């Protein structure tokens, strides 16, 4: 059973546009992470959010953890072609060692 649903699955936008990717679940997570994956490589961590309602910024990327710790969003401002890639959210359920990944959002930013 997939516990983390991401939307949209695919996104193609022009350089300079803003976008938001969502990660939703019916389960509570002790933390939630966002990764970006390039073709032929493994995912690389972008950020970890731990506290309900937490907002973290990484340059043009803004990450938010839902108050109930069941969902998260990733907002990119003024997207650039270098932002192209597969974005994955991942959650660790409290009391387990298991990191469960979302279905992924494939982003393409056109120059």
């Amino acid at each position, binding site marked *: 059973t997939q516990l983390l649903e991401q939307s949209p699955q695919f996104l193609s936008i022009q350089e300079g546009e803003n976008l938001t990717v969502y990660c939703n679940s019916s389960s509570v997570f002790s933390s939630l992470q966002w990764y970006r994956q390039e073709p032929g490589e493994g995912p690389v961590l972008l950020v970890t959010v731990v506290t309900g309602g937490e907002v973290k910024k990484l340059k043009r990327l803004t990450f938010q953890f839902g108050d109930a710790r069941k969902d998260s969003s990733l907002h990119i401002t003024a997207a650039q072609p270098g932002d192209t890639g597969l974005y994955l959210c991942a959650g660790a359920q409290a009391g387990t060692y298991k990191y469960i*990944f979302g279905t992924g959002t494939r982003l393409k930013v056109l120059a």
Partner: protein
Amino acid sequence: DAGITQSPRHKVTETGTPVTLRCHQTENHRYMYWYRQDPGHGLRLIHYSYGVKDTDKGEVSDGYSVSRSKTEDFLLTLESATSSQTSVYFCAISRTATNEKLFFGSGTQLSVL
């Protein structure tokens, strides 16, 4: 970059053949994971290890077994490969169990014909 090496990087095998994938780390991290990645499914956890000889099942463990006889090596075995096991397999490591960064290997592309 974290020292994680997956081998082989590519493998083509026939249905019914046993296959073993190896993950080797030089970081001395306690936790190791095997995931498979398929279009539309993201990354799905197969098995994980929380110490030498300590392993447990993930979401999609049927048809797979693992072994960890020393900290640095985590082996994934397909006892009798099937076409449904054609996938990209990723190994990951983490220092602690929760709220911790996962470091991933570069993956193994496995094709079962």
